[in-house]
């Protein structure tokens, strides 16, 4: 079993807010990135592993691989990172793993609107967030550990 210390939606995955913000406040054994495209791209996945903080293991999984990994015997405290809320929905549909989900950054796209400071979503992403809440996960916005949590339900529902 894995102990999820933080599950975060952030389209920049491991960046400054993670390395010098969150990882200074939380203790984990591994950073787990769930992203199909990233996993397939040899250059990006190898460079991510090399650049991540050295004391941690970095793993890049597909949805299926993550579920297998999550259910494997080894005990680990983990930080889960995904670029899109939809990925977490896919996982929750298979197995209800996430109870708390942190929404970090979602940059603007052509079809997105601004929800909150650094958070921009299109209709599909909003639906995914609603589905995550339905699946029993509470979703909160919190850029850095020092920031207070803002419940997303009040903002998008």
């Amino acid at each position, binding site marked *: 079993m894995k102990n999820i210390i933080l599950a975060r939606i*952030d*389209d*920049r*995955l*491991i*960046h*400054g*807010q*993670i*390395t*010098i*913000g969150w990882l*200074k406040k939380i203790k984990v054994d591994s950073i787990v990135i769930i992203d199909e*495209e*990233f996993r397939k*791209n040899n*250059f*990006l996945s190898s*460079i*991510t592993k*090399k*650049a*991540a*903080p*050295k004391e941690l293991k970095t793993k890049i999984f597909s949805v299926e691989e993550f579920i297998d990994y999550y259910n494997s015997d080894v005990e680990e405290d983990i930080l889960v990172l995904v670029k899109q809320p939809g990925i977490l929905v896919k996982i929750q549909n298979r197995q209800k793993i996430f109870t708390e989900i942190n929404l970090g*950054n979602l*940059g*603007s*796209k052509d079809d997105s609107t*601004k929800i909150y*400071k*650094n958070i*921009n979503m299109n209709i599909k992403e909003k639906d995914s967030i609603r589905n995550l809440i339905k699946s029993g996960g509470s979703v909160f916005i919190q*850029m*850095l550990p*020092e*920031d207070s949590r803002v419940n997303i339900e009040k903002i998008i529902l």
Partner: protein
Amino acid sequence: MTLFKFILLGIIYYIGNSTSFTFGIGYFTLYRPAFSGLLTGLVLGEPEVGFFVGAVINIFFIGFKSTGGSLKDGDPCLAGIIGSMIAINYKIPAAAALTIAYPASLIGIIFWKYRLNLNSYYVKEGIKGLKKGDLNSINQYDIYYPQMSLFIFNTVIGGFLAFIIYKITGAVISSDIEIIKYLNFTGIILITLGGAILSINHRWKYTIYFFTSFYIFNILFKLDPYLIPVLIAIVSVQKNRRIKHTKKEFDLIKKSDLYKSWFIWMNFTHSCYSFEKLQGFAFCHSMLPVFKRIYRKDKEQMVKSLVRHTDYFNTEPNIGTPIHGYIIRLEEEKRRPREIKEIKEGLMGIMAGMGDSVTQTVLSPLTTMAVIYGALTGEYILAIGGTLVMAAAVVYLSLKGYLDGYYYGEEALEERIKFSNNSRIVKFFPFFFIISISTIIAKSQVLSVSKLGVSNIKGAALSLLIFYFIFYFLLNKKIKDEILLISVYLIGLVLMIFT
């Protein structure tokens, strides 16, 4: 204080906050209290005092970091201006000035949010203009409008804020001259708290032992001010391995285009920084000379490609520049837009995470501490040295990144990661950080305590360690910084009323 001087202080606030037009160096220098304090001192005719007060306030901001549009600790630049202004005008000690300047600087957080929201509007308009084929719209909306707004806003608001605090402080002090003593005492405790917060945030097995022993040593004996910086310099020096891979020859792109692109990027990364796009619009701007070359005769393609690069983007602006060089290379090779987008978006976070843990976490605190220590001891060569090292690192790393990214592509990025992972100064950083911070705090506390009118200055400065231990213990028990900060102010207030 004349109106003209308040306007000048407002302009300093603009210069520090803008960080544009400075090749990326402004964020690590002019934005910091030691520098804004020095500039304020120059305006008010007492540069040495301004620099000194700014440096003491800067101790409180050594841990200052900003990542992806977050600003929590108050505006360092504003703190330096306010503190230095009241210290010079009312002849109050630096620590007392910190007590007033810190809460005032928190107002800067509101301005920051306002600025990022206003810039969202400019970015939108800029992209609209670009889509219509108007290339000037990039310059207008990335530099001209946001910088003009910031200039007017910061000059007016900064000047006005300085005026209000000038008046309030004057009224408070004239009512009872004894108040200065309490302000000073509160400031001294704030600095000790600052030391404890930095110790906790840079936790390492021996933090508390090294902090304590260096603190005691510095109060009882005189340490050569150049000893620690020289040691750091010796440890940091290392030979860089050269990239052995084959170098790409220039095809369509000319070397001057890389320089032009680098020039735009370094000077305007945060000129129109917005919540929606962060550095996205600046990235597009930096690609202007590139696409002007690649699509010289095809304006439609030029505009289309520029629009592609207005997407959300954010990275560490100095360490992250191999991304730019590499993207330019891929654009020259006319790779598929989808592929370029994936690489760019994949790399920005990686380089930000790694870059921030080098520049903002290691380089900037070390050089800033050299500046602070120089100001406290009057060894200005140390301060100039620290500034030059930071400036040189920013320019060298960013330009080399740009060129290597183009010449060596993926290998340049791997090389940069190796550079950060293997750099010796990063490895030894916790040790040097703790002994430096402890030395600086000891120095500043002796100077501040001497203004309290106690007979045994060394004893009083040593007794502050008790506060350090208490704060360290409480922070270790996960008590929040904010609660301790408010408590320090409350205790100061209670002491003032009841004694």
